[in-house]
């Protein structure tokens, strides 16, 4: 079979072909208006070891305000986020053993996006994540660990001190 497989209309999809699908949409969540946080539940399970999470299409009530992630409402989040501006000074924003991680910055004109890989969230081991983002005035990268072995099933995006309207969060599983 050619790789990647090219399907034709009406062709039977074999298990061999379907088992080559590398990324599977697990959950798609539209975000509402005026929210200070959005929890994405039941998106990590035993089907996949690792996941890709994306967020885009939202507008926030302020520019370049730090977004937070929360894998669980406990301490154990260790993170660092680098921010590179179009003009100005670059820097990093760490969080050490907090109940949140910094990841991403806001935009009032639909500039904010992020994409991250989450490793082993539903396994009894430390959860890791890393990714990149855009905002009103910055591009950046970030990553960290949730230093607990809790088997996670979801996560929360928090807009601390501001609100988000719209956008879509998508969670994809990487085939094991």
């Amino acid at each position, binding site marked *: 079979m050619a790789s990647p497989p090219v399907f034709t209309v009406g062709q039977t999809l074999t298990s061999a072909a379907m088992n080559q699908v590398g990324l599977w949409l697990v959950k798609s969540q539209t975000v509402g208006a005026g929210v200070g946080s*959005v*929890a994405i539940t039941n998106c990590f399970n035993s089907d996949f070891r690792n996941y890709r999470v994306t967020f885009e299409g939202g507008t926030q009530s*302020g520019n370049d305000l730090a977004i937070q992630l929360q894998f669980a409402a406990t301490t154990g989040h260790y993170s660092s986020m680098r921010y590179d501006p179009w003009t100005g000074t670059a820097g990093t924003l760490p969080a050490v053993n907090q*109940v949140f991680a910094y990841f991403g910055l806001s935009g009032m004109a639909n500039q904010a996006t992020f994409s991250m890989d989450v490793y082993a969230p539903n396994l009894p081991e430390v959860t890791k994540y890393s990714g990149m983002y855009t905002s009103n005035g910055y591009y950046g990268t970030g990553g960290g660990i949730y230093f607990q072995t809790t088997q996670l099933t979801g996560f929360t995006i928090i807009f601390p001190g*501001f609100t988000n309207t719209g956008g879509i969060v998508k969670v994809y599983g990487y085939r094991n």
Partner: protein
Amino acid sequence: MTRPLIQIDDEIREMTDEEYENYEALSVFAVSLEQSDPE
């Protein structure tokens, strides 16, 4: 601070007092990197 809404999957509603307390605790760590436009 005006109390924002909370969203859990498709459910969007007002925050309970406890949820707002947790949100405010996280807002203590709010960071702004907004730069003023060059003149």
